[in-house]
């Protein structure tokens, strides 16, 4: 649906790599061009009209994000360069001061690199220990296993709401309630969930949330860090510099601004943030429930067809997001992707930055189809038709 809004869809490609990044609607592109063409000044320096307009537009997006994720205050929203940046800020700016030797950090083996590596490093530096929540037969996180994995030493649980290979939707609210009863922090990697699912941080009560604009129709290079107000105040800035200080006279006399400015040193990605705002308006107009419903149906349509192909092995048959990971028996995933590319179909092959996943799934790489609301049943028909004939793949994969 709404395909006419996307300039990229005027070409012949079939874009099925939305887990990597989404396409951008014309309005998001135009909104950024408008900034560059008509009021291209810096933010927070409202000495003249166009600079003041930048401030208004930029800060307006903070309100939009706040509403979009159901946060309570705009100070709970900090703009970053993306999910990776947000997660690193959470780990290095908050948990680095909190974790002590022996404390346990709870993650899973299906997390993306960005929700693993920062924790690995901080564990090395503080003596904290990484623990993994066991996954069930479908590689899902169950409440039962979360309970089993928590110990009196658990300090933080950090999970993707939807993982980028298995695509399972985690019971975040239930996990958070249980964790908070034990004074455990909950960090959510929302990169794959925010674009596809209604998110309400006040309802789930999570402590931290990280996500990117570019997977939700917005520009690259922009992301969001959400933290509860009192926690945000305790995040140490990793970057110091312009825009985040009140004054500085000597090493022991640096006065920093209040949040969120304190955590946004340097000239921000103004065009990107403004573009993100437009993406949120656009999504709101369509309605997130509408998007989720459409994608769910499309996934069922794809699965129904794929299961009928004997040489296709689906890794995440039972997952309920728009992510479908599979392999063609005896053919390396990248070769399948190269073959599909010859027909203008864009899919991702590889380990998808989730390199621990192989430990549990037993498969090191896969082909991943990730859907968005502008994908269609016709596109899926084309994909399935090409996958049906294994001899054709073998013949044309070089």
């Amino acid at each position, binding site marked *: 649906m709404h395909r006419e809004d996307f300039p990229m869809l005027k070409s012949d490609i079939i874009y099925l790599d939305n887990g990597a990044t989404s396409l951008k609607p014309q309005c998001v592109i135009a909104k950024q061009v408008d900034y560059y063409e008509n009021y291209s000044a810096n933010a927070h320096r409202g000495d003249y009209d166009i600079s003041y307009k930048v401030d208004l537009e930029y800060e307006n997006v903070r309100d939009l994000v706040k509403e979009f994720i159901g946060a309570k205050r705009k100070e709970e929203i900090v703009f970053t360069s993306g999910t990776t940046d947000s997660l690193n800020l959470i780990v290095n700016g908050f948990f680095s001061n909190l974790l002590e030797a022996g404390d346990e950090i709870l993650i899973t083996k299906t997390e993306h690199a960005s929700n693993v590596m920062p924790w690995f490093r901080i564990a090395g530096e503080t003596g904290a220990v990484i623990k993994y929540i066991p996954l069930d037969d479908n590689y899902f996180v169950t409440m039962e296993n979360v309970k089993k994995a928590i110990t009196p030493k658990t300090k933080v649980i950090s999970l993707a709401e939807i993982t980028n290979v298995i695509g399972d939707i985690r019971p975040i609210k239930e996990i958070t309630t249980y964790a908070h009863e034990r004074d455990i922090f909950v960090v959510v990697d929302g990169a794959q969930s925010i674009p596809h699912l209604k998110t309400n941080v006040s309802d789930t009560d999570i402590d931290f949330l990280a996500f990117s604009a570019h997977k939700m129709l917005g520009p690259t290079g922009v992301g969001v860090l959400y933290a509860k107000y009192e926690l945000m105040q305790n995040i140490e800035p990793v970057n110091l510099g312009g825009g985040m200080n009140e004054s500085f006279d000597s090493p022991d006399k640096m006065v920093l601004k209040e949040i969120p400015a304190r955590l946004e040193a340097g000239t921000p990605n103004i065009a990107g943030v403004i573009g993100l705002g437009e993406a949120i308006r656009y999504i709101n107009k369509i309605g997130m429930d509408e998007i989720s419903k459409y994608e769910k149906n499309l996934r069922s349509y794809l699965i129904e067809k794929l299961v009928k192909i004997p040489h296709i092995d689906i890794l995440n048959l039972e997952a309920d997001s728009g992510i479908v990971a599979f392999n063609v028996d005896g053919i*390396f995933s*990248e070769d399948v992707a190269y073959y599909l590319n010859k027909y203008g179909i864009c899919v991702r092959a*590889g380990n998808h930055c989730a390199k621990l996943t192989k430990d549990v799934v037993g498969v*090191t790489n896969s082909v991943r189809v990730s859907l968005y609301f502008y994908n269609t049943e016709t596109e899926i028909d084309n994909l399935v038709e090409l996958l049906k004939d294994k001899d054709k793949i*073998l013949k044309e994969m*070089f």
Partner: protein
Amino acid sequence: MDAEIKREILLENSQNPFHKEEINDAKYIKVNSNNPNCIDNIDLNILIEDGKIKDIKFIGEACAISTASTSIMIKNLIGKTIAEAKTYINNFSNMCNEEAYTEDNLNEALAFQDIYKQNNRKNCALLPYKGIIKALEEYEK
């Protein structure tokens, strides 16, 4: 070489690669070769004795082009002296990079004659060669 024959060579060598087997022998030089932009990742084990390549085996995961290229490279290199091997490697690289080369001694590797047209696949074909160059450097150290 006819396109259909090329395809058959690539298919055969990727589906049934030559010397794709594990070996744990201290006499072998072990090197890894991977492409940073994809997940191709192979380990080569090379046995050099008396200045001659006596044996090469490989394991790992790689696309059909990389796997076929490794298989064919191994067939072509076993039995060659270091000097002969270097000439062969240079010649193959030249072919992939659209530079002057000779068809002599390339044998099945001629199936990669047109690989220069696919810039993103060229590195797949050259993957095992990166590894073997490392191994020869190590041997000569």
